[in-house]
């Protein structure tokens, strides 16, 4: 039986223009067989939630290198929850100091991937999430 591919929205919240990491991750997830939608730059949290609904996303992967993660990532989680999308796996990546990670996790971001992450680890993390327990 063929498995349906995992659907991922890779998004750039805020005004940050650094998209090398987001695009590399998007391509790596696609090469791993996932269905990937990349939003492009300068998305508001509301716009990202909207794309997640439209694309029926199972994963929303957020990237920020501008230091706006504490303000913006939790807003995406809240927006998804407000739409009843409590099962969407929200991931974060970028230049994110260790000190900020507990707060982001508390706000509902499942995992944070910082510079130097192997893209295969992100693939493994997502696959384990959907294949284990669900």
């Amino acid at each position, binding site marked *: 039986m063929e498995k349906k591919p995992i659907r991922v929205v890779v998004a750039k919240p805020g*005004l940050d223009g650094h998209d090398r990491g987001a695009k590399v991750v998007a391509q790596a997830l696609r090469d791993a067989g996932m269905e990937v939608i990349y939003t492009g730059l300068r998305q*508001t949290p509301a716009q990202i939630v909207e794309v997640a609904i439209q694309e029926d996303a199972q994963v929303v992967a957020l990237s920020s290198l501008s230091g706006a993660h504490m303000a913006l990532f939790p807003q995406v989680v809240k927006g998804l929850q407000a739409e009843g999308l409590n099962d969407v796996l929200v991931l974060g990546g970028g230049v994110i100091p260790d000190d900020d990670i507990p707060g982001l996790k508390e706000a509902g971001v499942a995992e944070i991937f910082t510079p130097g992450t192997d893209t295969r680890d992100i693939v493994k993390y997502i696959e384990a999430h959907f294949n284990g327990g669900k």
Partner: protein
Amino acid sequence: MFDSEKIAQIGEAKAKWQENTLAKVVKKNPERQPEFKTDSGITMNTLYTPEDVADLDYANDLGFPGEYPFTRGVQPNMYRGRHWTMRQYAGFGTAEQTNERFRYLLDQGQTGLSCAFDLPTQIGYDSDDDLSQGEIGKVGVAIDTMADMEILFNSIPLDKVSTSMTINAPAAVLLAMYIAVAEKQGVSSDKISGTIQNDILKEYIARGTYIFPPAPSMRLITDIFAYCAEKVPNWNTISISGYHIREAGSSAAQEIAFTLADGVAYVQAAINAGLDVDKFAPRLSFFFNSHMNFFEEIAKFRAARRIWAKIMKERFGAKNPRSWALRFHTQTAGSTLTAQQPNVNIMRVAFQALAAALGGTQSLHTNSKDEALALPNEESVLIALRTQQVVGYEINAADVVDPLGGSYYVESLTNQLEAKAMEYIQKIDDLGGAPNAIEYMQREIQASAYRYQKSVENGETIVIGVNKFQMKEEPPKGLLKVDPALGESQKAKLKKVKESRDNAAVEAALARVKAAAEGNENLMPPIIEAVKAYASLGEICGVLRNVFGEYRQQIIF
């Protein structure tokens, strides 16, 4: 440079050496890799000899420093007269905080300023805009009105210091504020010097802080060229940047090619706008990355100078030697910094700084060791500045012009990079020039970035601390944190300015900006009048957004 008989003898001798000496050793101890390649895909041979540069024509290909084609450098005696400008990019939080950091850096022997603006400023939004929330003062200083700019340069004499501003889409507005602040200090616009980045094409390609579509953006740029040629003669009106193209993942050859292709587009636009090439071209400047492949980077700077000189002389018919000379700023490669074992970054930065010096840079920013984690704190900025001071003052690397000129290897690399870059430039010309080749360049960069990531993941490329020599470490302490409450205080400051200014004068000034934007009049004079009336950056850019529209990015991955 050698006669053909001697080259043939060397070739024969080399063949013998390979067979009799080298082959035996390699057979016994195989080499570390089946082949060695630079990141531009150039094969690195075991050894270089005169054979590899047999076609080099000294007078035409290298010449003398300060003369066409400037391969060996843009000044005759380079750093024997004066070192490169040591210029650390800085800016965060409020104008007060950044002013303090500027004065600290000047006290430590830095010789020029380089200002980082926050993202709302770079994209033309005021701090009270909804889209600015979470970003105020984060990656640079927040500037809403000329009042912030007055604080930013408080007690810094603008006739004595040169200032580089990393500002692109709203460059005209920030330059206008700088001119107005200088005037308030009693310094006329012909006495100030500095640089605005003002390079919109690479924003579309790789950096992302665009506002307007290409045509009105190019018009703003050529308006600045024309205005500065008359009124601000010592200002570098653009810094055509390969830095961000490289950070986005390009190779060295792509960095030169895409940057110079952008340069060609600006020169062509200015000529089309009726400007005389020799009036504006001497004020064009460039900005490159200094990356990990040490010798290829040095060759890259040399090749870029030679290609640009040929383009300006042969393609655009420039007559003034200063129009031919490619002057550039360098920054060490941010993307090579690791979050793991951050002290190792100090060494990476030192080698990259040395490559920039050996490549003949005019100014240099050395990155701080903690930049994969946060904005740098004062201690790490000081180490970074000291690193380039060691390169400049202690190791005699600055005492001879182009010390690697004549190296068989470096000359061979210089030639090969030139050839590769020219192929890309030809391809971009065929697509109708850089403004029509944005998606092509993005695809090329993305392919290189992905290739690099895979090569790190499969261990072909070694990154210490990431895929080799890893160790357990404690999270670093003392990272710089921008106070999240700062957004509120910046908004309060803006509110106060808006309440205390003459709002009728602001409206009138904004109407003049609008009229100029709708017509053909140079935009700089009305923008200068508007900033003097304390119109905000967001208000001025808002007027321009209404007239010009906004750029929509094509999504390529």
